[in-house]
């Protein structure tokens, strides 16, 4: 009897341990083709790609170049992983750490992995380049835009940060925002301010590149802190252009103003046409729709992992789409 009791207690202990281990496993993302998922073990890894069909098929992704970004004291920190629409590319970015001291607070390394055909393993990903991805992106921008920011004082260090913006729908391009600044350890201050540039990595050619859209935005003074007033939001890029379908920056503010004016017109006509007893109902419906439009726009921007200023633009883009749809809906009721 004692032996039975001991076995059961040990069994329960094993179940409990398994349950704990499961709690430490975080599902990060599912590939669009549902073939694999990315999982993270709290608090400091590993980051694993796991096949959804064959649970034993998995591989670990080496993100040791991220340094001390994870640990017991940073329980919310997880690597941010984005899978391309064709499920063959993984972009992994270190989480932001605003509670760290400068310059570490600014440092956000990134890695790009490409799925390779392998006879040995069902799932096999390799880094797209050997050197630091965000550093290579900045060096490309430095050359391409003639930034002339190569001179760094002796006691200072240049730090880099990458931010995911978007994949193009054809999986041809990865759009990122690259930032860089120079921190002086002796002065304990930034001796070269932190600026931002948009940049593509062409997933077909394996090279960084700029299109006319990015070049026009990257060279605008507003983007790099010379002037911060950009009410028309012309210096914010939120969507990657597919290869062969490059276009200039969309005009969002004007489009929203037009849609909003059309909505006001059609709503006024509908209210006029509605019997007086039912008008309050229509007013309430419109107020509820406005709340819902604004909430959904905010939530969609969050689900796109947007930070400032991309979040403001994505909110506006979502509001444009909802407002134009509402105009069509109300017009049908006239």
């Amino acid at each position, binding site marked *: *009897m004692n032996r*039975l*009791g001991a076995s*059961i*207690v040990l069994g*329960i202990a094993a*179940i*409990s341990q398994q*349950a704990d281990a*499961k*709690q430490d496993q*975080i599902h*990060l*993302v*599912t*590939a*669009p083709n549902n073939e694999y998922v990315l999982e993270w073990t709290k608090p400091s890894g590993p980051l694993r790609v796991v096949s959804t069909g064959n649970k034993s098929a998995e591989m670990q992704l080496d993100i040791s170049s991220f340094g001390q970004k994870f640990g017991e004291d940073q*329980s*919310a*920190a*997880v690597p*941010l*992983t*984005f*899978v*391309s*629409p064709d*499920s063959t590319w993984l972009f992994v970015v270190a*989480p*932001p*750490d*605003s*509670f760290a001291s400068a310059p570490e607070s600014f440092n956000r390394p990134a890695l790009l992995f490409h799925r390779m055909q392998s006879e040995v393993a069902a799932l096999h990903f390799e880094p797209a380049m050997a050197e630091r991805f965000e550093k290579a992106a900045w060096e490309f921008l430095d050359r391409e835009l003639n930034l002339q920011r190569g001179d760094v004082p002796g006691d200072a260090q240049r730090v880099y940060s990458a931010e995911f913006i978007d*994949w193009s729908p054809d999986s041809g391009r990865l759009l990122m925002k690259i930032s860089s600044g120079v921190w002086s350890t002796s002065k304990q201050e930034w001796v070269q301010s932190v600026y931002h540039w948009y940049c593509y990595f062409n997933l077909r050619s394996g090279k960084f590149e700029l299109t006319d859209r990015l070049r026009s935005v990257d060279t605008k003074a507003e983007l790099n802190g010379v002037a911060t007033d950009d009410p028309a939001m012309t210096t914010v890029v939120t969507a990657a252009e597919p290869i062969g379908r490059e276009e200039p920056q969309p005009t969002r503010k004007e489009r929203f103003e037009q849609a909003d004016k059309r909505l006001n017109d059609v709503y006024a006509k509908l209210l006029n046409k509605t019997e007086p007893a039912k008008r309050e109902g229509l007013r*309430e419906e419109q*107020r*509820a729709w406005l*709340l*819902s439009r*604004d*909430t*959904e726009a*905010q*939530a969609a*921007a*969050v*689900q*796109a*992992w947007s*930070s*400032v200023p991309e*979040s403001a633009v994505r909110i506006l883009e979502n509001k444009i789409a909802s407002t134009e749809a509402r105009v069509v809906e109300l017009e049908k009721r006239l």
Partner: protein
Amino acid sequence: MSWVVRFCLFVFAALCSANVAVAETSADEDVRMDFHGPAPRPGYPDAFQLGYVLLKRMISPNNQYAVVFPSQLLEESPDFILDTKNSRVIGFVPTEEPYFQGKNHGSLSASWSPDSSAVLIENGGKWSPNDLLLFEFRNGEVFRQTDVLLPLQRLFAEARSKSEHRRVDKTSAANITINGAKWTTGKSPRLEIKCEGDTNPKAFEESDSWNGDLTAVWDVAQRKFVQHRFSNVTFRRGRKEE
């Protein structure tokens, strides 16, 4: 059934129940719950699952709604109201300064009406709330949101005007500390807010100092304060520098 088997079944049941909605102690000294947001974009992580925090104390009494705030991963993002049963986002706190986990001089609290038809959200700041907003729910949606902070500031402005015999700015009459919010139900739910106002929190001798406690009752249907009473009001002129 032997005691060993009974004991083991008990422990097993306890372990299973603990895994339903786990269960870690957050910095906010409350129980953190797992949840999901609306469907993310294909190939993108669920920002709500990874980057937002849901604490047990922020859930409505009927368990249908909850207020969530971002972790450091998304610290510039808004605080949201969720329909937790359907993983839907139904409202957000419109503010310049959303609360995020661990924010310096920040706090977020939710005071739910007993019937879960309304919630008062306080987005706390260093000296005064950044926002005090009342959200009302109907048919599973937010149908109205009302700023309660400005009317509260107006009450303080009136009280200060009486004490100081001068006009006082109605938008920032005092630094306000909310000490409690209590709901009463009836034909129209009412919310009793207890708070105190202060104009000189650092007690600078050369500055004028006004202090007072306020109990004010907000009527949800009328969308205004219908009763209020000040107590312990003091006013002291600052010692002007020579």
